[in-house]
């Protein structure tokens, strides 16, 4: 009488194991099949948001002793959001962000959240 085991449930997308605060939360999962039939799931490449389209929250001048996680705690309220600062100021190595004292860093809002407009 029913559709077999759980065919309708296959339409519900599998929940991701990454929490919503993770930068990989919305990254799609792909499946690699080896020649011997072994299946290995992997994350596809995460596309960075265009830094110019992110809304600016604040600007910060790097001083000695700054670290991306400390800045994230200070400006965003959570130390594990340091990757948002790296997204807004594209660098190859995240340590480059705070390596040079005097460098101006842009602290941006999360992707998709617009900044305030002046009336």
């Amino acid at each position, binding site marked *: *009488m029913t559709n077999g085991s759980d065919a*309708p449930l296959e339409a*519900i997308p599998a*929940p991701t194991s990454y929490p919503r605060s993770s930068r990989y939360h919305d990254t799609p999962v792909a499946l690699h099949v080896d020649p011997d039939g072994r299946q290995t799931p992997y994350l596809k490449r995460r596309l960075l948001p265009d830094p110019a389209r992110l809304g600016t929250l*604040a600007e910060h001048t790097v001083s000695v002793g700054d670290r991306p996680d400390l800045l994230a705690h200070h400006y965003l309220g959570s130390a594990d959001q340091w990757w948002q600062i790296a997204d807004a100021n594209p660098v190859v190595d995240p340590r480059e962000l705070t390596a040079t004292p005097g460098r101006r860093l842009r602290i941006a809002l999360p992707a998709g959240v617009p900044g305030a407009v002046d009336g």
Partner: protein
Amino acid sequence: MADAPVTTGPIRLTLMMGRRIPVPVPQPVTDALLSAQVTVASGQRSGFQLAFDLSKGGLINTALLPAGFFDPETRVVLVVTVQGTPTVLMDGVLIRQEVGISNQPGQSTLTVTGEDLTVLMDLEDRTGDSFPALSPAGRVAVILTRYASYGVTPLVVPELIPQMSLPTHRNEAQNGTDLGYISELAKANGYVFYLDPGPVPGMSRAYWGPEVRLGVPQHALNVNMDALSNVDQLTFAFDGTAREEPSARVQIPTTKLSTLLPLPELSILRPPLALKPAPALKKTKVKDAAKKETAPALAETLAKAMESADAVSGSGQLDVVRYGHVLRPRELVGVRGAGITYDGLYFVKSVTHNLQRGAYTQNFTLAREGLISRTPVVRP
């Protein structure tokens, strides 16, 4: 730097409004926002209420209100960012505005109320649109394509019991508005229909399917755990008469004999959350089942059984700053510290967000089908 306080605050509210495409509101409107309340419930439409300060010479009173900025059918998107993670709370349209003018300075307010985008599906009566040879899920998918311009992406789960009728035998036609018909189809299959805003502002997912009682549970609600408590109060209720055991009789067209339908197992769509499910004290009969075909009658019996399965309910209030996340409705959550009987995983039935300047609290209701947790621990 390490000891410096958090300057910009862990919670930010972004308000976007516009005719059809929402854009960020001007800064004076954000400054005038006094409070926001958003109610989201499983299987029901969501609503919101915003209150603005209406000063005599302010921008809202002199320019925006007469220009129609707060007129009905204006789209409103509310995004809250907690600890750097954005959550779209509401994507809806304004349907009512109230202006309260006071003799006391600073007490005049503009209150606007609205509902989520399903209100647009409830405007036009389309009785008579026919859907030949389409299953209920196919009909829902066809109807939802009309709202793609509002960023509504459908996620339609095929019904558990296939109900495709032959065009030569029966031609299904719509009855009432789009929303009414979709909800009617959902109810007949034990499914729910709702719009889930997000993941980015301006998009929402239209879900037609069973309540999703799967997936990774949200961060646990701790109660009566000293410094670890993150819930202000939590009450539970166990209602013995809530659960019903429906049965249906169908008539076999050729022999005119009636037979009792066997009730299929519920746990396909609802994995049990409690070790000791509540007994079904009430026995009910599905009305007019003999006039229907076997598959719709069976689906309706299953729907009735699923609808009433939740005998244990809980309600409470939490402070988002202390909890650290936004509690999301229609997902699982763990409860700790309530004792052996009521600890464990629950389904979040509804959440009311109350936002004010400097305060963000959530009222929530939880549900599950019995007592005693099935899991030895919940994720903290």
